[in-house]
């Protein structure tokens, strides 16, 4: 049970793609919207990077369950797990 619990609490990095055009009018700035979306699944998670040119979104560390929950929120396009690339 402890192992299962520990696995459930394990955090991974995810890249969260946001549909900026779907930002509710109640938010003045998209960063506030990103933060609010993130806080809806985790009180403690912080944004690692925010992205404005290559995508609209941010990267953060979440549990798998939190990532799944975030992906179901309105305005979220995708929550992609971090990938490791290697030099050629």
């Amino acid at each position, binding site marked *: 049970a402890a192992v299962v619990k520990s696995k459930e609490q394990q955090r991974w990095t995810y890249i969260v793609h946001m549909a900026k055009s779907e930002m509710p009018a109640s938010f003045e700035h998209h960063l506030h919207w990103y933060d609010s979306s993130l806080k809806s699944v985790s009180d403690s998670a912080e944004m690692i990077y925010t992205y404005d040119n290559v995508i*609209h979104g941010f990267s953060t560390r979440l549990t798998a369950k939190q990532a799944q929950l975030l992906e179901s929120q309105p305005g979220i396009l995708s929550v992609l797990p971090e990938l490791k690339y290697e*030099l050629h």
Partner: protein
Amino acid sequence: TTRTPQFLGLDKNPALLPESNSESDVIIGVLDTGVWPESKSFDDTGLGPIPSSWKGDCESGTNFTASNCNRKLIGARYFSKGYEGTLGPIDTSKESRSPRDDDGHGTHTSTTAAGSVVNDANLFDYAKGTARGMATRARVAAYKVCWLGGCFSSDILAAMEKAIEDNVNVISMSLGGGMSDYYRDSVAIGAFSAMEKGIFVSCSAGNAGPSSYSLSNQAPWITTVGAGTIDRDFPAYVSLGNGKNFSGVSLYKGNSLPGKLLPFVYAGNASNATNGNLCMIGTLIPQKVAGKIVLCDRGVNSRVQKGSVAKDAGALGMVLANTAANGEELVADAHLLPATAVGEKNGDIIKSYLFADPNPTVTILFEGTKVGIEPSPVVAAFSSRGPNSITQEILKPDVIAPGVNILAGWSENVGPTGLSIDDRRVGFNIISGTSMSCPHVSGLAALVKAEHQDWSPAAIRSALMTTAYTAYKNGQKLLDVSTGKPATPFDYGSGHVDPIAALDPGLVYDLTADDYLNFACALKYSAAQITSLAGRNFTCDASKTYSVTDLNYPSFSVVLAGTGSVGNGSTVPKYTRTVTNVGSPGTYKVSISSESPLVKIRVEPESLSFSANNEKKSYTVTFTTAGSLPSNSNSFARLEWTDGKHTVGSPIAFSWT
């Protein structure tokens, strides 16, 4: 690099190259392991002020300050938050939390793309000559995204974001990972955004060859670069006790072997491990190896580590034998002990001698650097191969460029082998990989960009592809070192780059961001997937029929139904292509050469006349099958338009599925 500028013809006809002022306005962003700013290749003598378009920065950190940048190395940033989030804080006793390159790879790639001219460059006297990047006057911006523990997608995406903001013109990425759909791949996503802003993105094809379907970075908005050899070698002969000699290669410099034959042992017979032949750490029995030359088989661990293992066990030297995976490809290394690498055939003969002779003996004779080696280029065995595993209708790689035994700048925080026990320090190192071919193309793209500042990334790539060559001067087809036989477009794409020809391609196949989004529609991407990829909304027209074959790509990959499949003996859809005249007015005529009588190729019209610059003309290609081949069969053809001065070539690959 030394030799590759000559091999590519950059030393001839300087009048054909772009003016230095326009070249020095081009900024190449290199995402890699950072930069060693003290490299002579970053000398900024003679360069004018930093381009006014530049918005970047020179960030400080461990052993790196803003004063490390100059008018050549104009930017340096590092991206470690994703890496540190996963693996914990960087141990600054092991790697620099700054743009400083502790590995060497990033310095090698950035100096290859745009290093300044350095006289008398060499590695232990090997490959001696004047080193220079492909675009000697272009500016370099280094974005460190790769660390001891790897390169993380959140950091790569952040670096691409900054490179775009900083206003680079070319992005060079000698890294890859996996074969995800484009909308899940951070490199493809970042490259899309860069492309949309007019930035040319070149990426390495990967080193997973010679297996098929082994490519990385296959998105059509990326220029995917495979690797070939150049006409230079570093011979080091294996001389056996039976009087026979076998050619090999080496970059060893140090204490010589005794001038006599030494006892020779096969690593597999000097180990208790089942994989003892591979000379893995701790597997050689010192009592069976000490004072001898040991033969190790290539594979699994690094080539230089095998040498280190042999040395630690007391061996005096090493012969490194290729296996079937590498065939006859010889990659030279700056081993820590006298060592040479031999091909599979020679390796097998040497092993036969080892097993047959009760007292085998051997020595190694080092011959230095030889140039003028023919045939060259040959496709490197390690270079990843098509077909494209994500979208088979897009032929990849796009081109090959020099990627074997390339000398370029290096970090002085690490020895030439990269091993922690290697305490030698060098300003230049010789290494191999598609990592090395990619920045060649990045630098050449910078030259084309300098000459044609208004060209899109697709037009620049088209110029590099349609002018690439697929045959040697004697007319024989380029060879694949892994088979010794003629290579195919799945190995070299459109061929080996010819930069001088690329500066004046005659016609180009242009593409816009919307063309690629139509391509995404053809892939049946959902609206969310398209928005993830492009960072903006794009609506596929429900009334329109999209096809991946509609993409105005400079090469063709035609997928046909194999024996027993639906569609035998049929006509596959027409391929329409539009070419833009970027030369003088003229008439181009088409020619087709094909190795398959089973596919009839018809081009309409057969001639295209242009009366003005930037005039566009379309043509269609119809492929009619007269029969089929078994599934997984391939055949190849070539389509060329020529006006007598320019030849605009496109490879055609047929795959029966």
